[in-house]
């Protein structure tokens, strides 16, 4: 039973995959944008942080659910 709980928590954290890809793409595009228009880096940075925070949320949900699985099924 214990090992199954661990596997379940591990699967829940797979949600981090999406966040990693998302933040990677967003950062790549932001770097491109800054290279094209260096004067707009303040605005780009602001939007990048917002986008990263939103993308990161999925990973956080996965993490919270994993913690809950471990805590409630113990």
């Amino acid at each position, binding site marked *: 039973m214990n090992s199954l709980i661990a596997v379940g928590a591990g699967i829940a954290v797979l949600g981090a995959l999406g966040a990693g890809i998302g933040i990677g793409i967003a950062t790549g595009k932001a770097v491109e944008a800054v290279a094209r228009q260096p004067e707009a880096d303040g605005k780009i940075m602001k939007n990048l*942080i*917002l986008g990263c*925070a939103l993308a990161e*949320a999925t990973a*956080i949900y996965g*993490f*919270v659910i994993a913690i809950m699985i471990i805590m409630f099924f113990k």
Partner: protein
Amino acid sequence: MEAVAEHIQEELNVQTVFTIPAFGGIPVAESTVVTWIIMAVLIVLAIILTRGFTTRNISKRQAAMEVIVTKLLGLVEGMVGEEGMAYVPYLTTVLLYIGISNIIGIFGFKSPTKDLNVTLALAIMSIVLVQIAGIRAKGIKGWLHSFLEPIAIVTPFNILDLITRPLSLCMRLFGNVLGAFVIMKLIEQVLPVVLPAVFSLYFDLFDGLLQAYVFVFLTSLYIKEAIE
């Protein structure tokens, strides 16, 4: 490993510090007490630092305080826009509170934001403020009509937004603070010297302040959207 798991679990549980003997006993959680400490520090700092302000021949302290306050208000104003000036003081207060409570873990206190109830309360306050801002800007009729925009089909999603927005605000803040805390504990287990200090800079200071910024940023984004 067992000891770490137990320690983390113990930190996750919200402990009741004492009970107010009224209305059948009101339990006061640890996060509430730490919030009081933060409030006391902020209020005392505000009183001490703003004493004896004048309009001429200002002291260095006054000049420094003016710069800090102007920068903070300007930061929030840039997010919420010209029309949302009325909400800037509240948002700045939330920014200060979340920022301090995220980094107070460094001083040995338990971060109030590690308690799901605190982040949930903050998120509900935010979404209520957003709706009030919408009502104030458009009137009750305009506010109700805003649920039908851009087309009537999306109304259920607009209503669903009322639940998902505070939920995501709350879970993001809680999850980030909790995640940083768990990771720091694990790092301390691997190597208790030097290494935690380096990672603490990122996880406690940078991430804590960034999450405070993101929380206020998203709230002001919603307000901006509501009063447009």
